[in-house]
């Protein structure tokens, strides 16, 4: 019987692929966002608003992660930006290999901002780094303000937490004070932006924030 000291990170394969992807992303001067949330929080709607606002100033490409359909990719494509669909066929998250395949289908010379819309799921995507510069997690007011406490990892890793559907707050029991307090405890560095895709609230703020970040990573 031999006893072997291994001490190797279990996600080593994903980490290595992600490192390679990151190298390529850096070479091409991409600013990369990993957009995560549970299903139905409004990721794609926010993305549509951001694309419509920024596409004349910033060259945007989108990787759409979804279990089976191409519905979201079709919505994004209608805005005239590059989009690649990844169907995970039941998989609950995107990983380094999937991103590598998707990158090979994009014209990276024609991209400044790459947005990866992850599979709608508050748990699993948080465990797999994709080489992103920024994680944005979206929570919608109809989901309840208990979600950051219940699924802290994703919120803990986020640079921006978007509270979407704020126009619906009067019709829900969402407690904004508790939400802000919980995010402050889980991730004091997170920027919180309140949005509504119906009224357009917060979209300017989000776009200004992103533009500033992109210009830092891609100095003219």
């Amino acid at each position: 019987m031999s006893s072997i000291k291994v001490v190797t990170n279990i996600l080593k394969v994903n980490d290595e692929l992600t490192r390679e992807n990151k190298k390529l992303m850096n070479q091409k001067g991409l600013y990369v966002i990993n957009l995560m949330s549970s299903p139905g929080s409004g990721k794609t709607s926010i993305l549509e608003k951001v694309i419509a606002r920024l596409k004349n100033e910033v060259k945007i490409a989108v990787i759409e992660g979804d279990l089976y359909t191409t519905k979201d990719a079709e919505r994004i494509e209608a805005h005239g930006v590059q989009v690649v669909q990844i169907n995970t066929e039941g998989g609950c998250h995107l990983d380094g290999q999937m991103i590598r395949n998707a990158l090979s289908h994009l014209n990276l010379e024609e991209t400044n901002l790459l947005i990866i819309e992850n599979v709608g799921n508050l748990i699993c995507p948080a465990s797999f780094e994709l080489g992103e510069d920024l994680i944005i997690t979206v929570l919608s007011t109809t989901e309840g303000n208990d979600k950051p406490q219940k699924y802290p990892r994703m919120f803990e890793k986020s640079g921006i937490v978007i509270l979407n559907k704020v126009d619906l707050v009067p019709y829900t029991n969402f407690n904004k004070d508790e939400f802000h307090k919980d995010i402050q405890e889980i991730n004091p560095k997170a920027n919180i932006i309140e949005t509504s895709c119906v009224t357009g609230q917060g979209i300017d703020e989000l776009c200004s924030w992103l533009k500033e970040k992109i210009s830092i990573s891609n100095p003219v």
Partner: protein
Amino acid sequence: MHEAAIVESALELILAKAEEHHLTKIRRITAKVGELSGALPEAMQFVFLNASQGTIAEGSDFIIEQVEATASCGSCDITFPIRFYHPVCPSCGGLDNQVLTGYELYIDTMEGD
């Protein structure tokens, strides 16, 4: 069920290591899994049972040692356990603390013939 992807990666790693050390049978594997790693030990065990079938790791003891989440406070010079993801210093109530343990997700040792 991202534990499936995690355990498949772990198994890939284990089998490669076994080949490197010319093992023909794996008897015991220990993994360290932190409380904040986002992986559930029970789900990992369940996946391992299935994923290891037909490999030299089939039937081995897959032992998961959970690692408690702790942080240290620079101002108070103390180390304390973290409740969920809230690294709140129990002494001064400060939030800007250094997380020391809890994110572990690695294969520690393996034994075999």
